[in-house]
């Protein structure tokens, strides 16, 4: 396989009984790319993402993540990826530092590594004075940025972001995307789902899922051109309206 490929899927399928949640999706994500994974609620985004993260075993098709097979090598995949979910994913009753220590620890990082990395992140986020505060006392925007840094703590090759900016104000969202760009610039592949179409514009390439299938996949510019419109919003609506499946 090509060394530039971070994620590759071919006819990846997940069935739950008679229901086909993800229907033969195929795509490649290049290393260092910011890949937007769009779709209405219930289109199958989360299921697809869970398969790529090793949380769910595919029913059919193939997929490799960071060069590892999702069927056989999901332990290796887990070491190479970071994950941040739409639900807030830090421990509220642990301090900023303790959260970082914990996640560093479960990824088996050395004390030295954890110490240096913690300092670096606190500097970057300007959270030095808050290092020993409980996470619950931080404002949501900070928590979200911190959660991203924690997901990046072990320096994964690929980071999966599941609606990372839900409920966050526009300014913080901007800052958040600056962090994503920085991560991508250092070679990290970013796989992100979102419902904000302005965020879709920030992605290198975007795929749009409808009823378990990928209906469109291209750069935002090319998509807009193909669908004869000047907003991603419109592209999304044209496609999402084809859905026959009810959203959840």
């Amino acid at each position: 396989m090509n060394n530039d490929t971070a994620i590759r899927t071919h006819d990846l399928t997940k069935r739950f009984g008679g229901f086909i949640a993800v229907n033969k999706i195929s795509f490649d994500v290049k290393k260092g790319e910011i890949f937007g994974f769009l779709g209405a609620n219930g289109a199958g985004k989360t299921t697809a993402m869970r398969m790529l993260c090793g949380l769910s075993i595919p029913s059919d098709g193939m997929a490799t993540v960071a060069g590892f097979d999702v069927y056989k090598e999901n332990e290796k995949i887990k070491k190479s990826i970071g994950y941040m979910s739409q639900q807030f994913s830090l421990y509220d009753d642990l301090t900023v530092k303790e959260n970082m220590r914990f996640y560093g620890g479960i990824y088996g990082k050395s004390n030295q590594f954890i110490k240096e990395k913690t300092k670096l992140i606190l500097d970057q986020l300007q959270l030095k004075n808050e290092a020993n505060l409980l996470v619950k006392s931080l404002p949501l925007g900070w928590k979200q940025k911190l959660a991203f840094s924690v997901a990046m703590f072990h320096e994964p090759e690929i980071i999966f972001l599941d609606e990372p900016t839900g409920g966050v104000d526009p300014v913080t969202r901007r800052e958040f995307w600056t962090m994503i760009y920085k991560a991508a610039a250092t070679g990290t592949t970013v796989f992100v789902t979102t419902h904000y179409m302005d965020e879709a514009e920030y992605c290198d390439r975007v795929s749009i899922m409808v009823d378990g299938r990928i209906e469109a996949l291209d750069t935002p510019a090319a998509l807009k051109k193909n669908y004869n419109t000047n907003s991603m919003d419109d592209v999304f609506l044209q496609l999402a309206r084809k859905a026959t499946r009810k959203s959840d």
Partner: protein
Amino acid sequence: MKQFFVFIKKEFYHIFRDKRTMFILLGMPIVQIIIFGFALTNEVKNAKIGVLDFAKDAASTSLITEIQASRYFDIAQTLSSQKEIEPVFQKGNVKLVIVLPANFNAELTHLHTAKIQIIADATDPNIANQLTNYASAIIRDYQQRITENQQLPYTIQTQVRMLYNPQMKGAYNFVPGVMAMVLLLVCTMMTAITIVREKELGTMEILLVSPARPFRIIVAKAIPYLLLSTINIASILLLSVFVLGVPINGSIWLLLGVSMLFILVSLSLGLLISASADTQQTAMFIALVALFLPTVMLSGFMFPVANMPVVLRVLSNVVPAKWYYNIVNAVMIKGLGVQAIWKELLILSGMLIFFLGLAIQKFKIRLA
């Protein structure tokens, strides 16, 4: 291994930073022992009673003095007519009224027989029963004393010995019960809740995406509760020996060993619940209804299992606490050794294997 310690440390942070959890974990055993030890006792002491003495002669007065002197009764009302009896019961001032007829002394000495009426408030039948028994016993004692010098034609003397608990203390019965309850509460409910909480918060997803193996995550979550449970056993035993005066007659190591086994059974039940519940409320509800109630009702700690209908007796066999309760009774109170409890040990071990196997199975299914 380091991963594992990081986990356990984190779990302790959760526990120590939540006051409610801390209270349930460390305060509950103490509170329960104290409530059961001092407040909830079925022994009757200083029950308020009324006396209606129509005789007011030498015999009646000395009998009343005797009743007053006993630690069971406290004469709160001295009545003067039959009409006053009903109202004092209605007001709830007294639980028992003793009526001594006129000419009590005369009838006793001349006719050799006298009648005493004992009227009890039987809204609580157990208390009424106990009180009338105590009253009858005092009267019997009194009678024996006044007939001491006379030889009765036939006498059957019963000699009663109360084995293992000569003073008939309620504590002997409930200490084993409280141990079973507290361990269930801590190990099963708390473990289930903390695992389900991670599911609710979404942090479980993050953990599952990490290289930490699911089984280790679960075991690491259970370990702090295992440690705290041993502290609980220690504090319950210390309290019962030094505060309630319940001795440990058997081997303390055997007692600790079987408690460990019961803790493991409870933990595996907690894991099983956490695998089936998605919210903390559900977990708590399952723990209460499926475990806590049966433990209180069917372990034999509140109500004797032998007196229950067949269905409940059969059902009680699946309640782990029943077996643990039997073991603690046998080892702690009766001072028996392993040979007396091998059956119970075998059953608990079987339950451990079964529940743990089921829990692991359920986790695997969820992850697929």
